[in-house]
């Protein structure tokens, strides 16, 4: 846990000192020092704006989104007892994508509505999956299947809406690949309350996931109501996912890869896995965003960076951990 906190501090500091604008890390350090002590800053007002209004909120937002996706991933995997579960399961991504696309197509000038629409869409997708799953049966497998069906349907609606207006393809496409390049403090303040509340719920209730992993009958005999616990955890994880999606678009692989790595390094107990995934997700996404914003003269879509790093790594983790991860 201490190592994870240290890693987070390191990527936070590096993320703030080094960015797309070549300010010089020592001058940024001087600016921070001046801000704290009230002294003279080596930076111009414009350079200071780059640090405080672009870079700092972007690094914090990357940390928030990474934490949200990874802790939600760990929770989904525990609730469904399925190592492949991720935060976009249950139609969250498809719902967000559909809502965002509809806003872009119907009112391209109203781009400010994309984040709230994505938020509502993500929650709507999960809600629909849950209602359908409940009406079809009680098992977690039913819920998963309902999520797949809802996801496919909402994606189809999104594609259809897209076809009606091909002019907006790039706008939708950019959003679907995920990124934080237009974010500022506003986005941090939008996402923070939801992700914060969800993080408290998930970390406090993580031990209930350990109880659930014993089996429903076993859990009931220990005084835990499996249905209610699942609903609470899914709701919190979905809320965090929806908040993350609404400010960053769709960023894949964080929710699958990070919990698996944590499990390999720190064991399978969810009391450890959930909070460590939160920290690990923040570290991973801050680092990935650092690559996205500095490796090329322009921006790389963040979703592309996480998939580049995440997909091969995920295969490696799956191969080397066969039998260890249940």
């Amino acid at each position, binding site marked *: 846990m201490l190592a994870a906190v240290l890693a987070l501090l390191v990527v936070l500091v590096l993320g703030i000192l080094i*960015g*797309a*604008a*070549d*300010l010089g890390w020592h001058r940024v350090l001087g600016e921070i020092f001046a801000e704290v002590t009230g002294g003279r800053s080596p930076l111009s*007002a*414009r*350079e200071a*704006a*780059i640090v405080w*209004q*672009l*870079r700092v*909120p972007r690094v914090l937002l990357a940390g928030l989104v990474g934490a949200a996706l990874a802790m939600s991933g760990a929770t989904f995997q525990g609730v469904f007892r399925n190592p492949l579960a991720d935060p976009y399961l249950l139609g969250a991504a498809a719902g967000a994508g559909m809502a965002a696309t509809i806003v872009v197509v119907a009112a*391209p*000038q*109203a*781009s400010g509505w994309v984040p709230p629409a994505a938020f509502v869409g993500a929650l709507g997708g999960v809600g629909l999956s849950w209602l359908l799953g409940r009406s079809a049966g009680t098992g977690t497998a039913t819920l998963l299947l309902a999520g797949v069906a809802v996801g496919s349907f909402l994606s189809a609606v999104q594609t259809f809406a897209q*076809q009606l207006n*091909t*002019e907006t*393809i*790039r*706008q939708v496409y*950019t959003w679907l690949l995920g*990124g934080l*390049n*237009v974010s*500022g*403090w*506003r986005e941090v303040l939008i996402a923070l309350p939801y992700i914060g509340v969800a993080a408290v719920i998930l970390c406090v209730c993580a031990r209930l996931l350990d109880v659930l992993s014993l089996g429903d009958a076993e859990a009931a005999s220990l005084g835990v109501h499996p249905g209610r616990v699942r609903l609470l955890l899914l709701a919190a994880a979905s809320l965090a996912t929806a908040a993350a999606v609404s400010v960053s678009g769709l960023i894949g692989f964080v929710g699958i890869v990070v919990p698996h790595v944590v499990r390999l390094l720190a064991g399978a107990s969810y009391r450890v896995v959930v909070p460590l995934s939160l920290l690990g997700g923040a570290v991973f996404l801050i680092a990935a965003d650092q690559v996205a*914003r500095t490796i090329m*003269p*322009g*921006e790389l879509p963040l979703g592309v960076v996480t998939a580049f790093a995440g997909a091969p790594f995920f295969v490696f983790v799956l191969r080397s951990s066969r039998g260890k991860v249940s």
Partner: protein
Amino acid sequence: MSLLVLLAGCASHQPDEDSSARPDTEAVFPVTIGSVTIDRQPTRIVSLSPSATETLFALGAGPHVVAVDSQSDYPPEAPHTALSALSPDPEAIAGYRPDLVIASADTNGLSAALAKTGVQTLVMPDAKTLDDAYAEFVELGKATGHQAEGESLARQTHSDIDKIVADTPKPAKPLSFYYELDQTYYSVTSKTFIGQVLARFGLTNIADGNDPSVSGGYPQLSAERILQANPDLVFLADSKCCGQNAQTVAARPGWNTLTAVKDGQVFALDDDIASRWSPRVVELVRAVADAVTRVNHAG
């Protein structure tokens, strides 16, 4: 599908008695443009390119245009349809019984599919330079029996633009600019058509960096780099599509520190004019000239 295309082809072989527009008498046919030979003056033209549509109407070929794609919104009298230029449907196009289809790209084997119905397709690729645009005016004139008009339009446009550029005062110190395609900071380098139009004014494009060919000429810039570059002018080609203007730009995080924002040098362009290589490119050149002139007077 191919059977349907064939059937549509059979239908299109019937004489077009309802076509009221008469061929020009001075037109000389056949003409050859690239690999396409047009035997008779086309009287039913379908345009799948907004730039070509504007040029056709400017040439006087408008009366022969029977359908234009969904993005061709100028001039207002153009016969607007739901035809898609991005994923063209040969059957829907053949339904207008054209004798010439003009497209900016041969998407999904469009010309081969239309050839089966006996329809010729003239592919006019995106203009990379102003000279490409002038050449397209001439070729479209030739293809539609308005050769003289095409040549005079190209000459006129050429001299109008040269005159506007020559009349624009040269900045005392080199001015830099940021050209915005959308709110995620996609921009154009000097490699692109638009970039070359702006380069005529001797401005420095902040999207060029060390390499104007980066990302095929359409890189996504980062907000940090835009602020660091501190452009003297900001051109917004996302004013109509996405509601961007001087106020929305000033409200972005950190942008209030930019010279262009502080000095009121953020200019909203008409998105459509700024993305087409039609005769209206003169209006784009004039808008840029006005902006440069204002900055010079202010400075």
